[in-house]
């Protein structure tokens, strides 16, 4: 049995293009270790997942998000 498709949380928030400066939004789509969550877990559609991946990488460079979470130093 196929599970009914989850709606994309980013589309639902009315976001056209993911903003790398919105660290509170991006933080919802990274794992406890700081990795980008796969869309099969987060339900993000493919277009937004591509934008999200780039946005997370920009946010990491700007020290808005950690590269690796949950370790000292």
């Amino acid at each position: 049995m196929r599970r009914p498709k989850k709606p994309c949380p980013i589309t639902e928030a009315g976001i056209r293009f993911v903003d790398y400066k919105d660290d509170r939004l991006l933080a919802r789509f990274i794992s406890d270790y700081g990795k980008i969550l796969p869309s099969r877990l987060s339900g993000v559609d493919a277009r937004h997942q591509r934008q999200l991946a780039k946005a997370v990488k920009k946010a990491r460079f700007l020290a808005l998000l950690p590269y690796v979470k949950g370790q000292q130093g």
Partner: protein
Amino acid sequence: MATLKTRMAPTRPYEIVYIFDSALEDATIAEKLEKFHALLELAEPAEIEHWGRRQLAYKIGRHEAGYYVIANAKASPATLPEFERALKLDDSVVRYMVSLIERVLGAPKLSDEELAARAAAADDDDDEDDE
């Protein structure tokens, strides 16, 4: 640095994020921003948004916090190499990023009516959860 073939004064919209040393005074930062933006030879002044001091997600060198500034400016690509050189040489700039604005980021700003409608919808959802 490769020279770009640019026609006369074509400008492109850029978003520049600066992370300054958080120990700097606000007046010094404003002064530095003015100095940097002068290098871009802007026709109209840049839109500047100060985020202020915030904790960095990880240490950059000895810095644990930074003063964030976001600037939107229409600049000619030819002015960028000199601008970036100045940023690299300035020790008070912990990090910077210049990106081309190709699309409007984030959600479009909602009107008051839409906000009210959304708030009402959120309330309805809460009611359903209670039952």
